[in-house]
């Protein structure tokens, strides 16, 4: 491993230890909840970043993977009586499968840029309407997970349990990203992002590389969906396949710096800090906090196109 990769790994380890130690010092459920939701946003952001930042394919419909993971976990538990831990890998696999479908259709026909974004959005909408219609997913009413608090059930009595699970998921996403930065596959993916023609001329199977990227991204996003269901015990079509999740997935990397390892983490922390601050300072007038949030976002995108990471480095690889 090269020195830069070792440094990244050390930083990740430090971060993991710091977060893991939190429950020892912090007992406030409120604070731990903020940290959990921040990590959850970082997970979705890192998953999006793998496809959007390293693959250059900007998805505007990552909810399609999130919702699939969430519904897979809920349906398997409610309708088939599966254990939640057993449902997790199944949901992840299903997320990858849906990603393979979306990826095959879009990349086979050479959809890029805004066309790809629109197709992913359309997929999420179609899934939302389906989930709203069929009996299987509980239709518009949604699905409620029966409350059976125990670690063996992926339902923890204390927030610390959830913190460790989401930390593990987020770290997994970060380690995959670290691998992208230091592997042949990652080099091929970034080459395809920067110029598909040049990449193909150098022997890169552009279609395959992008397909694998979207499958990794979809699988990780589906894991986020499972976490959501276990944490909130409830899912409905609007939450699962709505625009909210699709936007949440791309916000953290865009604010933090796309195509970087730490961008989605930094972005998630910055956004949640802003989010909590505006909510607490302007909580009395609903909507204002969202407007301020939006304003900050617009300013960030116009003045810091490379996100928070852009402050730290002159080049994306420096």
């Amino acid at each position, binding site marked *: 491993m*090269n020195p830069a990769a070792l440094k990244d790994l050390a930083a990740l380890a430090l971060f993991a230890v710091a977060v893991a130690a939190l429950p020892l010092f912090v007992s406030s459920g409120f604070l731990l909840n903020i940290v959990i939701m921040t990590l959850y946003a970082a997970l979705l952001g890192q998953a999006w970043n793998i496809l959007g930042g390293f693959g250059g394919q900007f998805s505007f419909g990552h909810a399609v993977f999130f919702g699939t993971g969430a519904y897979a976990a809920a349906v398997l538990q409610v309708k088939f009586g599966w254990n939640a831990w057993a449902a997790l890998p199944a949901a992840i696999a299903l997320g990858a499968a849906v990603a393979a479908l979306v990826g095959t259709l879009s990349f086979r026909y050479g959809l890029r840029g805004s066309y790809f974004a629109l197709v992913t959005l359309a997929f999420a909408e179609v899934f939302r309407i389906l989930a709203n219609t069929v009996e299987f997913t509980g239709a518009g009413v949604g699905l409620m997970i029966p409350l059976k608090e125990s670690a063996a059930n992926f339902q923890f009595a204390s927030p610390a349990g959830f913190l460790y699970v989401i930390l593990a998921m987020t770290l997994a996403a970060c380690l995959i990203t670290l691998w992208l930065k230091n592997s*042949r596959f990652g*080099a091929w993916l970034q080459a395809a992002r*920067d*110029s598909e023609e040049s*990449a*193909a*001329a150098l*022997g890169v199977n552009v279609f395959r590389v992008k397909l694998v990227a979207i499958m990794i991204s979809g699988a990780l996003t589906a894991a986020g969906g499972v976490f959501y269901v276990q944490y909130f015990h409830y899912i409905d079509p609007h939450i699962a396949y709505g625009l909210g999740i699709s936007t949440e997935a791309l916000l953290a990397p865009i604010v933090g710096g796309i195509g970087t390892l730490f961008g989605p983490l930094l972005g998630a922390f910055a956004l949640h800090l802003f989010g909590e601050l505006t909510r607490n300072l302007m909580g009395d007038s609903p909507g204002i906090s969202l407007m301020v949030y939006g304003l900050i976002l617009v300013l960030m995108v116009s003045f810091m196109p490379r996100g928070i990471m852009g402050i730290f480095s002159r080049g994306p690889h420096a």
Partner: protein
Amino acid sequence: MLEVSGLSIHFGGLKAVEEVSLSLGEGKICSLIGPNGAGKSTLFALISGFLKPARGRVSFLGEDITGMPPHVICRRGMVRTFQIVQPFAAQTVRENIAVGSHLHRASRRAALAHAEEVARRVGLDNQLDKLASSLTIAGRKRLELARALAAGPRLLLLDEVLAGLNPQEISEMLPVIRAIRDGGVTVLMIEHVMQAVMNLSEYTWVLNHGRLIAEGTPAEVSNNAQVIEAYLGRGTAERLLREAAGA
């Protein structure tokens, strides 16, 4: 090593490449010349798999590769560069070249080390950590060449690697290309810079309006009446002859 026969492609009513056949032997530098819009780059795109021909065949190292996708053709040992260079702009020179090196090297460390070695061969070794987007045109042309070279080609298709360079830069590039050939790589180049064609190339094909109109050594070709007319207009060859006789 490369056999092209009856290759044709039409864009609407335009016969971009029409019935082109040529045969390229191993270990040489050959060139493809012709006026702007003659179909040279289109022919390259057909040979390297970026376009599928309407008719005709391409065979490489004795195997039919017609219609294969570009990355497969590249893996068989034919690597092309682009006239309009397309560096991976957000990446450093080293990382750019390593993409080519990765074709035959799975390990990141091996690919990066190989990239350095290739950079030395094309004279980019003092710019390894620069972003590709910060290179000059001459630097980008070298990078385009280096990336292709790193993929370990047996046949290198160079599309105007000298265009846009000043005379000084051109004379620096000529020995680089010659060294590539001496290293065992066959080179087919599209070139407008006649100094380079005359200097490097052992055999030349001339393309005009999508058809081959002449072939031979550069000296033979440059005295061919049809070639002179293709470049300088109808009747020019005759006039030049008359003037030469009169003088």
